């Protein structure tokens, strides 16, 4: 036999997670909470999970995966950076070069295909990514999706694009001399419902050197009702 589930969940008299965090940090300063916490398995569990989250100490067998994941996250969420110029403060280089390069990517993520009989008339819904400032349709807005678009980099001679699976496998790699790439049928075929892909683009100068790159943009397409399309949020 077991206690009813509802008795094992958070109760109205349980402190908020912020309060529990204060207690975990300094039990003396939040001593009034002690009687409740000592009697409440739910709160004890929350504190243990919070502490284990904050400590972030991977076990031996978790080390490699954790490092790899952290590195992938960093690659995907770090903003494009300007090259630091020798002898100058980093921000000097940033201020000189970034106006030409930093605003690179403007692509939407979270596409949502509508089910329509005419495959070429698919109308995705874009989900905005906060980092990206322009060309992003409002959430829920439907636009005809026939190409990837991004903001042009003035010195770019060419752009290199990549669509990867979540495990990093390259699903598509292409190039474009302009700041867009039309999707052919084969590429559209990669955008399957409920499949997550990552799109990224690099701007190359005439010598083939990368002069700017986008963050990795997560794309997820979900089937929608033709009458009431949904966004991913």
């Amino acid at each position, binding site marked *: *036999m*077991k*206690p*009813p*589930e509802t*008795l*094992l*969940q*958070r*109760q109205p008299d349980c402190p908020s*997670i*912020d309060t529990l*965090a204060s207690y975990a940090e300094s039990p003396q300063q939040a001593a009034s909470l002690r009687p409740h916490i*000592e*009697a*409440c*398995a*739910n709160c*004890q*569990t929350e504190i*243990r*999970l*919070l502490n*284990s*989250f*904050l400590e*972030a100490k*991977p*076990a031996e067998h*978790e080390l490699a*995966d*954790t*490092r*790899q*994941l*952290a*590195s*992938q*996250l*960093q690659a*995907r*969420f*770090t*903003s494009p950076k300007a090259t630091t110029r020798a002898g100058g403060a980093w921000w000097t280089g*940033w201020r000189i070069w970034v106006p030409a390069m*930093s605003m690179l990517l403007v692509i939407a993520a979270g596409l949502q295909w509508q089910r329509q009989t005419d495959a070429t008339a698919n109308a995705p819904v874009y989900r905005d*990514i*906060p*980092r990206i400032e322009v060309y992003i349709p409002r959430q829920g807005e439907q636009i005809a999706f026939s190409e990837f678009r991004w903001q042009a980099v003035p010195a770019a001679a060419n752009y290199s694009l990549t669509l990867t699976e*979540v*495990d990093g496998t390259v699903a598509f790699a292409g190039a474009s001399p302009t700041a867009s790439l039309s999707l052919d049928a084969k590429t559209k075929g990669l955008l399957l419902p409920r499949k*997550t892909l990552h799109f990224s683009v690099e701007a190359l100068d005439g010598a083939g050197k990368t002069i700017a790159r986008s963050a990795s943009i*997560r794309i997820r397409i979900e089937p929608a009702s033709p009458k009431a399309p949904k966004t991913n949020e």
Partner: protein
Amino acid sequence: MLQHTDEELVVLIQTDPSPARYQDELFRRHYDRVALWCLRYTGDRDAALDAAQEVFLRVQKGLRHFAGQAKFSTWLFTIARNYCFNELSRTRRQAEVSIDAPETAELANEPTMPVDEALSRAEQLQQAREWMTKLLSEEERQAYSLHYGEGIPISTVTRLLGLSNPSGAKAHLVSARRKLSEAVRRWKVGHETP
């Protein structure tokens, strides 16, 4: 930038016209912990990457509303926890049942303690807390609370609590069940009307 606290970085992100470098620094400080949390929750590197990205996307989206009443790390934990518990649990629970089928089913089908007719809800809560505190070990309590209270699959509970015994949370759940069953039996005997 290293001298800024997380909360100061959030203010800079909210107010500076070029917030990207502040966000880079703030996120950099927390990639490891979100990665590890998602890895433990999902038990799979690819799924963990997807979950961790979703967590950071939610953080990006919510940063402008972060009012600094809590520590950033606590807020981040809440987002990671809620995302995993709410969004991933439904799909993962299905898969888990097929893996641990016999014993999971046994635990899931276990009857609840039949004290609801005799006690008010507040009394039930007090009684349940008392039994769990007095009778169960710390790990039994927490495994029990996560599995039965939150509906977290057994193997996930094992990873979240960092249990290294061979059968993981399952052993703690079985032991807790035995102790609580005995407590309920004794309680019933003591409260039976002649």
